[in-house]
């Protein structure tokens, strides 16, 4: 996260850099204030909020925690404001505070928001564990998608086709799983589907110099068309080719029994654990290995890479296919991992959010994970508030994840420099 605050490099940012330092602190301040006025004061005296951290499925059952709404929300808001003040001070001192500040700040504000939302509701209480778990779950396709984008763009190829790769992955996973009667077979098939789309992208973008974004967009439409057609014909005629198959949970022994953390992190299906591993491995490989160095060289300055004997286009083709495979794997989330049958356009635009997450994460696997989690959390929060019933109109709740993302990129991340050769076919 620290990388997210280092100094900007290009003119765009230079112009901004002088002011940009302020965007963060001011943003924090405003949010802190909003939190104080709306959630703190707004919680209304006398109300109580009940937090529950345990789910009936849990091993330990922890009693629910009931707090006076107004007091708690106000206290948390004050903490947030204090942090904002700290940020202002740091800016004045031209110091950079670590990643902890935004994190703690977010927790404080979220806490006060939830306290307010749960204020005076007998029927419902704030489900911390449930909230965090669905945050993880909802971010899975975004993580895989963003990783795919990162792999491709680091080698200089823009991958707008993530959406299509997710969707085709979801489709083939369902098809194969249903046909073989084995969800894991579907899990294996998904990356193949994604890789296929990736290969098409590579052929057209790298070999035939077609505008990468055009290919990407077209591939998305292509996949939507094909899957929808097969869904309406093949799968409709033989329902046994599109059943809901589920990978099922694989609770990690011991770990999964830790309160909160256990259910949130260690009680998922195989895909989630694969996700953890993929992020770590890719992050190391991309920034510490020879492969990574060469890939990044190709994406930054293909000519330079060429002059030291690196095969630019071969590298790109491989990365794009690999990226496609990863996105395809993420597609498995929608069907076999979620235990659902395939449905028309069921990826519902997640591929584009993933694209944003990739940039928000500054083209790094770690960043992609954090960005995706941020979005997943905002999305889960929106659902949670809807469930508990809140005075906010549902359409505005619907905006929450998107607003949160905009704030994150404008306030915290600021300028991010894409790989220099991104989008440009390498012709010699």
């Amino acid at each position, binding site marked *: 996260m620290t990388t997210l605050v280092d100094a900007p490099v290009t003119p765009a940012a230079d112009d901004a850099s002088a002011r940009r330092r302020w965007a963060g602190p001011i943003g924090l301040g405003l949010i802190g204030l909003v939190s104080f006025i709306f959630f703190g004061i707004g919680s209304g005296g006398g109300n109580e909020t009940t937090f529950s951290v345990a789910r009936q499925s849990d091993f330990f059952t922890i009693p629910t925690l009931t707090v006076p709404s107004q007091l708690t929300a106000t206290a948390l808001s004050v903490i947030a404001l204090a942090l904002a003040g700290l940020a202002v001070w740091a800016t004045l001192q031209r110091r950079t505070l670590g990643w902890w500040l935004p994190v703690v700040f977010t927790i404080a504000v979220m806490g006060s928001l939830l306290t307010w939302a749960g204020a005076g509701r007998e029927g419902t209480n704030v489900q911390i564990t449930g909230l965090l778990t669905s945050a993880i779950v909802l971010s899975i396709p975004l993580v895989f998608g963003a990783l795919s984008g990162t792999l491709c763009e680091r080698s200089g190829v823009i991958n707008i086709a993530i959406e299509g790769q997710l969707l085709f992955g979801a489709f083939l996973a369902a098809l194969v799983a249903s046909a073989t009667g084995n969800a894991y077979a579907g899990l294996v098939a998904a990356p193949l589907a994604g890789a296929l789309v990736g290969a098409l992208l590579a052929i057209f973008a790298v070999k*035939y110099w077609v505008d990468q974004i055009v290919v990407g*967009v077209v591939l998305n439409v292509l996949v939507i068309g094909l899957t929808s057609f097969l869904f309406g014909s093949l799968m409709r005629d033989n329902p046994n080719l599109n059943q809901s198959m589920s990978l099922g949970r694989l609770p990690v022994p011991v770990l999964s029994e830790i309160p909160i953390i256990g259910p949130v992190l260690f009680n998922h299906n195989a895909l989630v654990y694969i996700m953890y591993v993929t992020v770590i491995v890719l992050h190391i490989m991309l920034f510490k290995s020879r492969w990574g160095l060469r890939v990044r060289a190709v994406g930054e300055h293909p000519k330079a890479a060429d002059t030291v004997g690196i095969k630019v286009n071969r590298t790109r083709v491989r990365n794009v296919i690999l990226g496609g495979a990863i996105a395809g794997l993420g597609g498995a989330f929608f069907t076999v991992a979620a235990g659902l049958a395939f449905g028309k356009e069921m990826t519902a635009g997640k591929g584009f959010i993933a694209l944003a997450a990739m940039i928000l994460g500054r083209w790094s696997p770690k960043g992609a994970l954090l960005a995706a989690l941020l979005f997943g959390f905002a999305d889960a929060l929106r659902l949670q508030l809807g469930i508990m019933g809140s005075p906010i109109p549902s359409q505005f709740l619907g905006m929450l994840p998107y607003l949160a*993302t905009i704030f994150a990129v404008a306030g915290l991340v600021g300028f991010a420099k894409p790989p220099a050769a991104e989008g440009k076919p390498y012709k010699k």
Partner: protein
Amino acid sequence: MSESTATTDRSSADGPESEGSPEEAGRDFGRLMREITQSDLLVVVFAIFAAMLLGGLLVVLADKDVLATTGYFFSRPGDFFAAVGGTLSSVFTTMFQGAIYNTNASDVAVGIRPFTQTLTVATPLILAGLGLGLGFRAGLFNIGAQGQIIIGATVGAYVGFAWDLPVVLHLIVAVVGCVLGGAIWGFIPGFLKARTGAHEVITTIMLNYIALNLVSFALSKTAFQRPGSTNPQSPLIAETAEYPLILGSAYNLHLGFLLALAAAGGVWWLLERSTWGFQFRAVGANPHAARTAGMSVSKVYILVMVTAGALAGLAGSAQILGTEHSLTAGVAASFGFDAITVALLGRSRPLGIVFAALLFGALRAAGPALQVQAGVPVDIVLVIQSLIVLFIAAPPLVRTMFRLPAPAHVKEVAA
């Protein structure tokens, strides 16, 4: 004359000779001949042909009549090929009849209706495409046209149904409303980029979703609903706010189309002949040099995004004041996204964008006929459309496929 080369420019970095100029008329003629033999026009023709073949085959596979024949293929292969041929030709003719000229129409007036439909559908694509192209030239990858269209249309719609103003004035005010709406929605990412460096791809994607939620919210309020109905659908806009139909009520073609052509001219002038455009292109090509030459990169970003938003807003007006006449959450259809492809296909040059938009318009216009007459499932229609676009975007591929001569300047690289 940037125009003349526009559609054939492979990128603004192609060969040392990137521009023709009056005083080189002789060489220009030589180049003209070269461009005709190697032009993208020829490529386009072949591209459509190739895509049709592939798409046609898909239709064949999707078509049970044909599949049936495969059963007794070996006994009576004739049937199979007859069926295939039948499907293919029906697809070809239907597309032509659906998009250009309806040959089995009683008279010309009816016959040309498909073509006017193509132009009508192309209108919002031209406008939004121009906006996006403008951004691309300035190095901004704005994918926010969708949201900008929605907001523009929302404002315009409100002016259209809620206010009543004298004839001409009402239309003008409504159009201005659309433009303002779009411009504001374009300003936000421009401003954020300039001030905080926030990447426009993120902000515009998010703003698309936010716009959608906003319009849904508006439509859930009685102020935007029809009297006595709670459907999320606005009242019809007043006729005084509608774009006049330029070919009479028999056709949908409306004034917005002429507006779009005018806008294309304007954008060309802005880009190629105005000091603003000069800055836009400089910033797009090399922000460092632009800055050292005294241009304000942030100002350019904001300016470009506002202009792009305004154009997308105009596209919104084509929807709400031109064809739909009533605001729904789906008022922007998928035009905002198609416009990205349109702009890139047109290589961000105004003339190119107009052509690309017409192509898309034709493809969309042919859709219903394909479904109803040729019985092609809507999803396969999508596939055919995207294949055509893909091939048209891949001249080198089409050239290799059909052994066309490669244009000289493709080989060159500005080192």
